[in-house]
């Protein structure tokens, strides 16, 4: 008989995510459901406000990808107003976007995802001298992986374990057989977990130099940027460059090496060799650089066919709410959508933990909507970005992927896995780290003849405006859509990376990337579902981002409806 497993809260992510799966007698997952359990209604709040404040407000959708929504919302308004911002502002936004990617990807890998791969307890039995040798296998110049460094880390962790109270490390899945690192490899990764804490701060500081602070920088405005004093200060520019060098060094000498190490250790671990079951990928242009060219290019791949890449057509985006806690009679384009909350409650049933309230999977079961492109579910994120650019023959991406495959001895197909998704994030970051100096140089060169950073926008209250913006956020393609009327926001919609990936089943029964990724996965112990966490974490979930709505079309608050099962 099939059994249901409930995993809530999914920890080490942004926000509130619930996963439920049904396993057969062999503990193989037959069905899976993903649900976001929080709704905040931020886009409702935007209605009637000045478009100038949109960026600051949508920024609060998420404090992890703290720059993505800020920039995307601001650029949607710029697009609506037909505003071409100064080139300095474009470069500066690129540099801040880079800082976000570094920060986000490093924190994701080392502090959110790592504990799915690294068995902290196992690192205790490592031989630090041997581990230092192992580290040299994956790079000629390891960081924080010399014998002395590793011994100090081991001592620290031993202290943790000895005291019997593990604090944030308590009650985890240590000892699970799908942890594949040797004790020495675990120790190296642990050392980088700690070093990474330091490096992520430096990456955050990079953004703060031009943004005032991080999280939630405050220098992007409709029409450009405000941080002119920082931009014109050679000391500030130098500070940025120095911090960039520190971060890039870590990306190359630790992040890259650790992914190669993971490929080595987990190359035969079945639970990470699946996990990519929606083979449609979509991404957009990102990192405006020298000569006005982007580092990564937009595109769509269908059914894993790398021989054909289509251009993204914004008209083909629609959101379905069949199984989401909203009501609507058909999938809607972001400009036209109406969204009305319709909460229905959980349903009680037997689970591996006994009777529990569970998702009503026949009905509505998530605050996340289901975006579709031409009716199809799409995976977004670094893997999608790399595949599209590989298929397009983007030379930097082709070279990086080929080099990685050669280094690890893996075939191209290995990218279509949980491991590949995690590796893609590193490769995307590393290519960016090499490119960023050029963007920086282009900015400095341009400053020699032009220091314009802002153009004052003008909104005619008698005119109606409509606009959107696509950016490639750390978790994938993000788009914001805005209508402006009487000088204020008439409606607003954000179609977010985690929404693409985490959305529930649609009206046609198509399932999205999260739910699909878990099918066929065998669990060692359904009560300790480490394998599920590893796959879901490989998407880098950001739930606060994924849940949002707008375009209220005159619906007043009194018309909020709650389903019959709600308390």
């Amino acid at each position, binding site marked *: 008989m099939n059994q249901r497993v409930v995993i809530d809260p999914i920890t080490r992510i942004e926000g509130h995510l619930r996963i439920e799966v049904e396993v057969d007698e062999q503990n193989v997952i037959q069905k899976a459901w993903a649900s976001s359990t929080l709704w905040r209604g931020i886009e409702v709040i935007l209605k009637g406000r*000045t478009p100038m404040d949109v960026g600051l*407000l949508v920024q609060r959708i998420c404090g992890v990808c703290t720059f993505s929504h800020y920039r995307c919302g601001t650029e949607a308004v710029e697009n609506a107003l037909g505003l071409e911002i100064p080139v300095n502002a474009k470069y500066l936004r690129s540099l801040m976007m880079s800082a976000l990617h570094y920060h986000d990807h490093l924190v994701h890998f080392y502090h959110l995802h790592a504990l799915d791969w690294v068995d902290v307890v196992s690192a205790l039995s490592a031989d630090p001298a041997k581990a230092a040798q192992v580290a040299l296998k994956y790079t000629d110049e390891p960081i924080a992986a010399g014998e002395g460094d590793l011994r100090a880390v081991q001592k620290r962790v031993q*202290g943790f374990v000895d005291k019997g109270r593990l604090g944030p490390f308590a009650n985890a899945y240590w000892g699970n057989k799908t942890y594949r690192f040797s004790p020495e490899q675990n120790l190296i990764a642990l050392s980088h977990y700690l070093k990474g804490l330091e490096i992520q701060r430096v990456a*955050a500081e990079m953004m703060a130099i031009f943004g*005032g602070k991080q999280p939630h920088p405050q220098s992007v405005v409709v029409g450009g940027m405000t941080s002119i004093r920082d931009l014109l200060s050679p000391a500030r520019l130098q500070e940025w460059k120095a911090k960039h060098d520190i971060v890039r060094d870590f990306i190359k000498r630790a992040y890259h090496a650790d992914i190669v190490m993971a490929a080595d250790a987990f190359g035969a671990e079945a639970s990470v060799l699946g996990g990519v079951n929606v083979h449609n990928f979509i991404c957009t242009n990102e990192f405006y650089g020298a000569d006005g060219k982007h580092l990564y290019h937009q595109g769509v791949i269908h059914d894993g066919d790398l021989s054909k890449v289509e251009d993204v057509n914004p008209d083909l985006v629609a959101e379905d709410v069949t199984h989401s806690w909203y009501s609507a009679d058909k999938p809607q384009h972001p400009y036209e959508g109406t969204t009305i909350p319709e909460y229905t409650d959980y349903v009680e049933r037997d689970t591996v933990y006994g009777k529990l309230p569970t998702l009503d999977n026949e009905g509505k079961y998530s605050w996340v909507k289901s975006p579709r492109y031409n009716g199809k579910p799409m995976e977004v994120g670094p893997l999608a970005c790399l595949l599209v650019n590989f298929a397009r023959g983007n030379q930097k991406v082709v070279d990086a992927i080929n080099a990685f495959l050669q280094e690890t001895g893996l075939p191209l197909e290995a990218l279509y896995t949980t491991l590949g998704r995690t590796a893609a994030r590193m490769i995307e970051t590393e290519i960016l780290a090499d490119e960023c100096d050029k963007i920086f140089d282009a900015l400095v060169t341009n400053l020699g003849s032009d220091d314009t950073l802002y153009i004052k926008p003008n909104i005619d209250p008698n005119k109606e405006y409509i606009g959107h913006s696509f950016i490639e956020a750390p978790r994938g393609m993000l788009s914001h859509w805005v209508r402006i009327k009487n000088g204020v926001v008439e409606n607003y919609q954000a179609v977010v990376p985690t929404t693409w990936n985490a959305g529930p089943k649609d009206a046609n029964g198509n399932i999205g990337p999260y739910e699909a990724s878990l099918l066929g996965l065998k669990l060692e112990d359904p009560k300790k579902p480490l394998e599920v966490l590893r796959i879901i974490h490989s998407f880098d979930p950001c739930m606060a981002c994924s849940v949002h709505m707008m375009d209220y079309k005159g619906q007043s608050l009194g018309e909020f409806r709650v389903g019959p099962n709600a308390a």
Partner: protein
Amino acid sequence: METHAALFEQGRKRLEALRQMPPRQQESLKDKLLEHGISRRDFMKWSASVTALLALPLPFSNLVAEAAELADRVPLVWLHMAECTGCSESLTRADTPDLDTLIFDHISLEYHETLMAAAGWQAEENLEHAMENYRGNYLLAVEGAVPTKNGGTFLKVGAKGKTGLELVKEAAEGAAAIISVGTCSSFGGVQAAAPNPTGAKGVHEVIDRTVINLGGCPPSEKNIVGTLMYFVMFGRLPALDMFNRPKWAYGARVHDNCERRGHFDSGEFVEQFSDDNAKDGYCLYKVGCKGPYTYNNCPTERFNAHVSWPVLAGHGCIGCSEPNFWDDMADFEKPLGRQLLHGIDASADTVGAVIIGAAVVGIGAHAVASLFANSKED
């Protein structure tokens, strides 16, 4: 009004009592500092800076140092409600040396969804154990607002499907003290902005206990750590302002200590972002700065290891540590003008009065007045 001597005595007694409690970590903070390559000297410097931050006289820095060493006697439960995780993120930006993070390592962090290794059923077990075993002794930190409409069903957490509202009430009951970290848990924040679709509220509005409110979107890591240190040291809440914010952090207006204040007094203003006046660092009031209405220590402490703060980056303060700032302080690119905010008695001070009278003429008049004031001092 309590004397510092009495407060010092209270702190001493509290730490004495904590010392009698069993440590939850065998490794002492001293060992940890050594492992991290932080010298005793650095540690004492850090203690002195926290002491200064808390507006306490220097002799208290020994108490701060001792409190840091005893912090592991105080278990911490950190809940996430309707939020964006920006406050947790802020915490990880701690200053170098890495002491603040270390304090968090050192504090017995029993539950924190973003950081903990356990998930699902096991995570919930950790929470339940902490609430049971440390009843009456744990510190509760809440990040995010509490949705209250529709029975709180806009947020559910855990396999048992409890609403955020239920969870906060439950956790608050056994807590020794409660800290709302950030504007959302303090005052409702962005989701409580009009029309507040989910009925989002600050924690203090849904329970009947005193809650310390750390306003800020997000608050700086220093304001979070300082508040925790204060509680460890004295076992009670610090002096609070009318919104229950610690006075040591929120006692002065951003405007009072602003680096551009001289330009305000001289009537020198940025007319539009990044213009020539902006290059010279003129005052941002006319492009919307809400520093005159906002209480926080951003100008002195800054963010990200003192790297910057919004006004240095050429953008006005948006008032993010104030209740209802999304509604009361908007539009963010326009001066607030003749709007009196709840409870802020700005008329008591000349500059504030000028601001409330906000027209440029008023500001010009003030500039003239301050010229006179200056000449008198000469």
